[in-house]
């Protein structure tokens, strides 16, 4: 029983780390540009499939380094061409556009790579269990957790220590003033979008190694990411991180006791949070 609980707890933590990685990217875009990026899951899938294509040429590590960058590049183009014309219009339109884009990306990956699950090879030494008692602690899982920690730390360093990060944070508070101070907000939003998509691509490579590659991989991960943002509080990146981990662990624990409710439980938590604290756990008062 303890082992089962530990297993699912750890599993939940990993899933939570995924949700957090994805939700952080979504949150970045949402906070600065007010765009709910429905296509985020599609970009995640693209990241995974690009890595799949690159592995024979660059190996796992090369693919891990390059695929998210390529995905981010695609994100930069999409923002520039499709999303930029919608800034300043009702948020309804960007929502509908990214919604359509999600369809195109999912169907496009299915068209190119097929609907079946593709095997995704990770280095052999990463996939063996580290201990016999705790069989679930494979090297790959530990590696994933470590990489998510590195990525999140990197993100917060960028936001807090670089000029770009400072401008993103300032723009989140008041984009107009930032623009008046001479910052090109078009480029700022573009780079910020790319940064968010980079995180999606990275999550895609990691998810492919754990869950296998399917066109629907993105759409199964996107809803919990929304919930993570809502629970954490809109406008707060640490909140998003907390929300992601929280729902991952909660659904892991629920799997032990009541498996068929493991998806529904995160929405129950969301309902409770909204009831007690409508702005989310770490959200600012009066922002939305």
């Amino acid at each position, binding site marked *: 029983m303890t082992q089962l609980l530990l297993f699912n707890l750890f599993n939940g933590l990993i899933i939570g780390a995924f949700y957090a990685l994805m939700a952080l990217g979504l949150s970045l875009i949402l906070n600065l540009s007010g765009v709910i990026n429905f296509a985020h899951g599609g970009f995640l899938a693209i990241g995974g499939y690009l890595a799949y294509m690159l592995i024979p040429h660059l190996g796992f590590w090369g693919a891990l380094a390059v695929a998210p960058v390529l995905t981010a590049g695609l994100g930069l183009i999409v923002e520039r061409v499709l999303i930029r014309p919608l800034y300043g219009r009702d948020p309804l339109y960007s*929502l509908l556009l990214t919604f359509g884009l999600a369809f195109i990306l999912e169907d496009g990956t299915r068209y190119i790579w097929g609907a079946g699950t593709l095997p995704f090879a990770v280095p052999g030494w990463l996939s063996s269990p580290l201990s016999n008692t705790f069989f679930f602690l494979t090297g790959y899982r530990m590696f994933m957790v470590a990489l998510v920690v590195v990525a999140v730390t990197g993100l917060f360093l960028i936001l807090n220590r670089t000029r770009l990060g400072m401008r993103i944070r300032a723009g989140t508070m008041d984009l107009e003033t930032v623009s008046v101070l001479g910052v090109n907000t078009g480029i700022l939003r573009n780079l910020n979008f790319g940064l968010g998509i980079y995180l999606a691509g990275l999550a895609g490579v990691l998810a492919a190694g754990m869950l296998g590659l399917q066109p629907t991989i993105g759409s199964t991960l996107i809803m919990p990411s929304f919930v993570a*943002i*809502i629970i954490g509080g809109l406008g707060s990146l640490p909140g998003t991180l907390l929300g992601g981990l929280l729902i991952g662990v909660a659904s892991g624990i629920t799997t032990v006791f009541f498996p068929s409710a493991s998806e*529904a439980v995160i929405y129950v938590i969301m309902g409770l949070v909204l009831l007690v604290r409508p702005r989310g756990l770490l959200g600012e008062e009066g922002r939305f």
Partner: protein
Amino acid sequence: MRALNQRAADIAVWLLLLGMPYWLDSVGGYTSLGSRILVLALAATSLNFLLGFTGVLSFGHAAYFGLGVYGVGLTIKYLVPSTLAGMAVGVVAGTIAAAIIGALIVRLRGIYFAMVTIAFGQVFYFIAYRWNSVTGGDDGLSGWQRQPIDLGFTTVDILGNDKAFYYLVLVSFAVAVAIMAALLRSPFGRTLLAIRENERRARFLGIPVDSHIWLSWVISCLFVSLAGTLYALLNNFADPHDLRWDQSGDFVIMAVLGGMRTFWGPLIGAAIFVVLQDYISSETANWMSFIGLFFVLVVLFFPRGVLGLIQRRSAP
């Protein structure tokens, strides 16, 4: 002159709808396609009550639509073989769920509101998807069908006669649409418009904004769940995908496509969307890409919708 035009347009719409089963065949359609258009038009019109006339963006209406779908399916399959009882259960279930969830989210605004409605919609999807023994899970709920309606003096065979079913849908549509139109003409409806135009000013005037939005949300969800019950009866089947988020997106695009600031817009949007979907999915397996592309094109080049465009042209 304008009012006269409006009256003429209304009469034309009703005449077209009344005769639909008879002229649809001659343009290459079939009666159940007409019923499908009308059912989804009802859903989109109900959504638009909230979206276009209260200015509140919900991206989770499929949940209440789906509660209608499962309400009618489960009632006929397990409780009583009666179409009307099933519809009543479906509508009540959808409305109660909307009232409860609405109370939780009514203080949120804008994209935050949209996001929370999306997320809440998924709860019902997972319940339908996971509760195999009752709902049939991923396979959907089958093994039931709509029942003839006994009116006392006569029995209407909506099962065997497609046209009879179409007129059941049309009557429901007419009643729902008439109620919504009357509400929009009433002081309550004018207040909703005021909230849409300037919420802060409405609040200064002493209007209880939150409770107005809540009521508008509940009304909108009530009629969307009515549409859900009709949709289940049309298919004789309840599909878990009817309550998924992509269905919500379809409703929104129908309203936008037709023109969300106009009353008949969602009807036109639904007609275009259904016909297009029917055609594309029979031509290619990659219909998802085409629908997605369609979303993108509508947003970029056609944001006012068909009627919005016509209105703008004709305005002096």
